[in-house]
Structures are given as C-alpha cells and as structure tokens.
C-alpha cells in the first residue's frame, strides 16, 4: 500500500487529508471523531474574539437532482471563547499526538494582539498556525479576513508580526477574491510564511427566492454576500494552486483547498503541487466517513500507477501547465464517432451546429445506418462533441499526423516555423454557404 504519510512544512500527519477550518472543526468532539475515522489533520475553526452569528447561515446551488453542487456561508469565525478553543486544542493534541492539529487565527490588525494570540496558541502544543486572511464576509467589514488578504502590504506586515514570536510553522490562507493571487502569495513569502493554503471561499450570492425576492441565505428577508465553496469551485482552486505553485518566487509548500470531495480531486491537487489537502464542504454534506474512500482510492490509484509516496506524485502535472503561447499550433485532432456504440441522440450534432463549428452532418433517421457523421474538412478538433456525448468513449479525439514540425504562437509570431494546413479555413462564411 502506498505511503501516504505527510510532512508539510514540518507538520507531520498520517495522511494528507486535513479538515479545513470551518464548522466541522468547531469542537473537541468533532475533531476527535474525525481523527478516529481516519482524518490525518484538522485546522481548527478560526479563533479570535468571539463573534455573534446570525441564525440563517448557509445557502446552496443544486445541479438537477445533485444537492449542494455549490455552497456558501455567511457564518463568521468561532463564537466560542478563545480560552475554550485553546483548551480543547491542547486536549486533542494530547490525545492524538500523531495527528496534525493546526490553529486558525484571526484577530484585529495590531502587532501586540497578534503576538499575544500566537503565544497563547503555541502553549496548546498545536503543530502549526494558519492565518485566516481569506474569509470574504462579515469579518472583512471589520478589517480582518480578506480585508487583510487582498492587500499585499497588510499580508506581509501581519505575517512579519506573527513570525516575530512564532516557533511553529505558520501557514497563510489566501483569498481567491483578488485579481492576481501570486502577488499576495509573494507578500506572504516576503513576510516569512512557512506555507500557504488556498483557496478560501469566493464572494457570492447563491440564490434569490423568486417568491419573496430574498437573496439566500435569508436573514429576516435580507442577506449578505457569502463565501462560495463546494464542488463548483474546484476548477478555480486548481488553477490558483497551480499558479502559485509555478511562481518562481513562491518556494514554500501549498495546502490545497477548494471543492475536494473525492480521492480524484485530491490527486489532481497533489499533481498540481499541493502538499496537503483540506476538506470542508464534502464533510458538511456527507460526514467524516468520506475519508475512508479518500485514503483508499488515492492509495489504490498510487499502487496501480506505481507511485510509492506522495512526493512521487506532487507537482507532476505542473510542467504541463504553460502559457497559451507555448502550445503547439500544429497538433491537429479530428473527432471520431464509434457508430457501433452511438445511441443516436444527436447531441453532438446540435452542439457542433449551434455551439461550435458546423462539422457534423446529420443523416435521415430512417436510413437504418448512422445518423451523424463528422465532416472531416470542417472539424477543428475542439472536443465539444466528445464532451456532450452521453456514451463513454463513443466520440474520441484522434490525432491527425502531419509533416510539419511543432510550432508555438510565440515562435510563429516571431516568424519562425510553418503552420500545417488546418480545417479552420473551411469554417468561414464560404464554408457555411457551400455546405
């Protein structure tokens, strides 16, 4: 079985699966139960001066029958006294010495306040500190959370204050609600951060009740923008993790967060550079028990592929993330329809005809044979037909060899290399007229 042991900026855990800071990590009871069920670590629900929450806190987006495809919250940080939280952190750490216990902190932007908070936290025996510079709602109105994480100078300043006293690793949690996350990541590095975690939630209004016109979640008829998370945000998180991981100025470990619900999601984050993984929404939906398959699935996949440790996988996809201008313009694809497995829904035709490049021909349904066929000279190999096809592997994208050497836009624009003849020339008004 693959070795899933994790060493993240010096924080050790039996596997890379940590509970993200949030409702599932609010109490000793929850975290202890999670560790019993197999979680490798937990980032405690953010501690600070206790807040008062509103009652209606969560909203979600369903996709057809799939509940909570996207999820948002307007809940604030812990509403429990700092002392209670710290006491329970110490207790968890004492009872689960091999698990990673990380305290998430958010206090007002005063050097002295931060110093005191960090010192108290270290007394618990916690393995690390995560600075919540990402929470986009409520706390940001009070100058904390994303109000800090959206300004590189503030981010750097507070990390410096924390690092003046911290002896355990300091992780900075980044907000995605910025134009370029790498600037914030660099500021955290400059301030001395030991690691980064991303993404925090995305500014959002999840829904409007069309009976009452109340935005959701509704608090006596009104709402406020909240933090969006869940499966819907995974692609955004994957991109931001890769952007930070590829930045030459960011050399510290990254904990991946954002829509992780399965071992596949986890493996993708690791492949794009994540050193540990944090999960919240999936646990809020299905409970701590999902960690069993996170571990089992990741482990089986690694065994089947011959990856022995997480280090064998980490960042493996990163070299393949490039600028567009470095992609080969002479790599040509052609859609291929397996007529034996085609169920004749014609979704490919509709999609190509209205939404892409008019490269599929429709044949009469009563001819007894195929009802769709690729017009090879018009196909631009865009993948759309394969993406909409409801039959697995019925439409495949086949490479079309040519005698031309690869050429990128960067090269071509500089006058180097030659373009192979391409089907796009058919996709013009002339083509439309002649077909």
């Amino acid at each position, binding site marked *: 079985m693959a070795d899933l042991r994790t060493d993240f900026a010096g924080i050790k855990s039996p596997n890379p699966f940590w509970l993200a800071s949030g409702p599932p990590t609010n109490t000793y009871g929850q975290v202890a139960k999670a560790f019993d069920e197999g979680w490798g670590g937990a980032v405690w629900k953010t501690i600070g001066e206790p807040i008062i929450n509103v009652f209606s806190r969560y909203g979600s987006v369903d996709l*057809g*029958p799939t509940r909570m495809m996207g999820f948002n919250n307007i809940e604030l940080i812990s509403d429990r006294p700092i002392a209670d939280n710290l006491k329970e952190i110490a207790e968890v750490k004492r009872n689960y010495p091999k698990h990673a216990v990380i305290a998430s902190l958010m206090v007002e932007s005063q050097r002295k306040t931060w110093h005191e908070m960090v010192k108290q936290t270290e007394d618990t025996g916690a393995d690390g500190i995560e600075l919540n510079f990402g929470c986009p709602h409520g706390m940001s109105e009070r100058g904390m959370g994303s109000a800090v994480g959206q300004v590189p100078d503030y981010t750097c300043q507070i990390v410096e204050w924390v690092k003046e006293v911290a002896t355990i690793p300091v992780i900075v949690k980044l907000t995605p609600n910025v134009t370029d996350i790498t600037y914030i990541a660099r500021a955290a590095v400059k301030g001395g951060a030991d690691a980064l975690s991303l993404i925090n939630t995305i500014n959002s209004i999840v829904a409007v009740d069309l009976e009452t016109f109340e935005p959701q979640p509704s608090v006596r008829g009104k709402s406020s923008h909240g933090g969006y998370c869940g499966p819907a945000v995974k692609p955004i998180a994957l991109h931001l993790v890769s952007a930070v991981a590829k930045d030459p100025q960011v050399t510290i470990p990254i904990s991946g967060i954002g829509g992780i619900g399965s071992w596949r999601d986890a493996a993708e984050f690791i492949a794009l550079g994540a050193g540990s993984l944090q999960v919240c929404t999936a646990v809020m939906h299905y409970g701590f028990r999902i960690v069993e398959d996170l571990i089992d699935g990741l482990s089986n996949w690694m065994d089947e592929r011959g990856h022995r440790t997480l280090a064998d996988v980490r960042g493996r996809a990163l070299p393949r993330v490039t600028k567009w201008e470095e992609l080969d313009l002479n790599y040509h694809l052609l859609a291929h329809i397996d007529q034996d497995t085609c*169920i*004749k*829904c*014609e*979704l490919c*035709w*509709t999609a190509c005809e209205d939404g892409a490049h008019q490269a599929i021909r*429709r044949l009469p*349904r009563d001819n007894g044979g195929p009802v769709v066929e690729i017009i090879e000279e018009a196909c631009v190999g865009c993948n759309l037909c394969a993406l909409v096809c*409801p*039959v697995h592997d019925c439409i495949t994208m086949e490479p079309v060899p040519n005698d031309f050497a690869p050429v990128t836009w960067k090269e071509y624009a500089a006058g180097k290399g030659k373009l192979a003849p391409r089907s796009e020339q058919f996709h013009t008004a002339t083509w439309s007229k002649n077909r």
Partner: protein
Amino acid sequence: MGDLTKNFADIAPPLTPDYALLEANKCLFCHDAPCTIACPTHIDVPVFIKKIATGNLRGSARVILEANPFGHSCARACPVEVLCEGACVLNDRDEQPIKIALLQRHATDYVLERKVKLFEAGKPTGKKVAIVGAGPAGLACARDLRRWGHAVTVFEAKPQPGGLNTYGIAEYKLKADVALAEAQDILDLGVELKLGVTVDSLEPLLKTYDAVFVGVGLGQTKRLGILGEGLEGVVDALTFIEHLKTHPYHETKVGKRVVVIGAGNTAIDAVTQAKRLGAEQATIVYRRGEADMPCYDYEYELAKRDGCEFRFHAVPKRVVGNGRVTGLEIETPEQGRETIPCDMVIIAIGQGARREFAPPQGHPKIFVGGDCANGGAEIVNAAAEGVAAARRINELLGRTHG
C-alpha cells in the same frame, strides 16, 4: 380480495416531485428525438421534460397539451412501451428508458389539479362545425376548432362525454373522473355538448353546419356465433368494463370462475379486472398460440402477475349451461373437446364497425377520425386524428392556423 379500492388503485402511481426531478434530469435532451417521432401526436418530449427539470410545470403541460389535447389520459393509458419509451435512446445504452409517461403525468396533473386554463377560444369566425361523438377524436378536434374561433356542437349518445376514456379503459390505468375532467377542460372553451343524442344521419347536420367531424368509435363487441351465447352469465367485455367504471366496485357482478374469450388488450383488461373484482379463477381462452396474441407483451405480463391463466390453441365450441352458464366447451389439438367449468364468460374478440351509418367517402365537408376511421387503436391515435382533422376543417373554412 377484500379491499377493492386497493385492487383498482393506479397501476403506475404518480412520481414524487423529487423523483420527477431526478428522472427529468436523466433525459439527454436529444435533437430530433426518437420519442417525439414515435408519438402519433409528436409531443416535443425533450422540451417538456427539460421544463420539468427547470421547475416550469405549467410550460411543460402546455407543450404536452398543445400537441395532444388528451395528454392527461395518454399519460396514464398510452402504450408507451411500444411508442415514446420504446424509442428512447437510453434503450440503446442498455438502460431503462426515461419514464416519459409518468413525467407527462407529473406535468399535466399540475395544471389539472390547479384547474389552470392553458388555452382560450379564438375570436368568433361565424363558422359552425358539428362533431359526432365526444370521444378523444371528437373532443381533440373540438379543442383546436374552438381555439381558432369556430363554433362547435358535439353530439354524444352516452350520458357522459369522453368516449372510451370514460367508459372503456381499465380502471387501474385511467379513472372516469380524470377522463371527465379532461373532457370538461375542452368543453370549457365554449363547446356546445348535446348528450344522449344518437345521430343516425349526417344529412340534417350538413344543412346546418359548415363542416361535420365523425368520431363515433366502433360498434358492439362481435359475437362468437356459437351455441349458448345468450345464456345468463355471458357478457361482452366492453359492457362488463363499462359497468365497473360507472358503478361502485362491489356492484359489478363477477363469477367465481371467469373465462375470457380473446387475447387482445381489451381481453386483458377484462381478465385482470375480473380477477381484481374477486374471481377465484380467471382464464383467457385463445384460439391461436402465445406468440399470436394481439395484446402487448407488457399487458400479457400484467395478466400473468395478476394470476390469470391462459389456454392457447383453444377454440370455443359451445357455452354450456341450463339457463345459466356452467362451462365453456373448447377444442384443442391435443385433447380434443373438453369443458372448462365456469360461471361467467366474457367475450372480447373485438368490436365491429358501427352499422348505424357509414360516413360517405370523399365528401368535402365530412371528416372522420378515431376508432371508426382507423379500425380501433389507442387514445393517442384518436387525438392525433382529431387534431389533424381540425386543421383540415380550418383550412376548409378559410382560416389560417394561428
């Protein structure tokens, strides 16, 4: 079989809202969809299902009923296994097809329960059309003619409208109250309905009306032409089913041992309902083999699940009895003549054409549709033919569809 209400409960109960959402989202939204092609009224199935998925049930029902004025009864009684659901592309992915009938019921029930009026009568054109027969063909025709503003008078021999929807569909598929509500929805567009009127000649109507649509259905159940057919306890299937559908269940007499002669869909309706009424034994007697049965496969399966028995290659020779039925003498190739003891014989060998009048062929003002034109088919065929006739009548009357 104490609780008869339970025995006649919907064989396909309605979907819950959650199930409907799940099922609607399974639909692939095919282009040029085979389900739509397979439907005689060409309901745009993917479109109405997509509207269920988005929560637009009113819009969904309108798509259905626009194409098929009998969308309510078809959702319950259509042979979807051989029509839309049989054509669903998911069959080719070796999966169960989309539950189109139940989704159609989900959408149409929404408007039926809320009495939503989806259609309205058109501006009066001053033209008058007579419709003979208030079954699905006639009322489908009436619905569209009213939408185009023509005055419509429907003549119906029975005391209630709806035709076989009201009187002849197995109770566990379609109940009379739904059939009547569906008919009323159409009548509410301002159709004049004359009940209890038997039309035996079209001549007077042709003098008064600008066009006549004939949708009178078929005539009586055919007779076997064997001895003993007049004995007490011998009944034809349609009379038996009509009695069941127009009386409290316990008032319909059923034998302890019932033999149904014939193996069409009406025969299945009769044998299953005899069993559900409390017959200890209910047996289909059919002169040809299992594979020759004209009933749909799933109807055969239903009868077997209900515990009905089948005698194939059994030719009825004589109904035995002295005043009352005591048995049916049959002849089989293996055993020659034998008598099946029974106290009720239901004849279900199909209906004959109406003898009262034959509509003249090719008359420019006379249009026909439904069972009397197609020889006996489904509600959906009658509805399709009624709708098609309405278009032709509208053209005759010099209007454009709108």
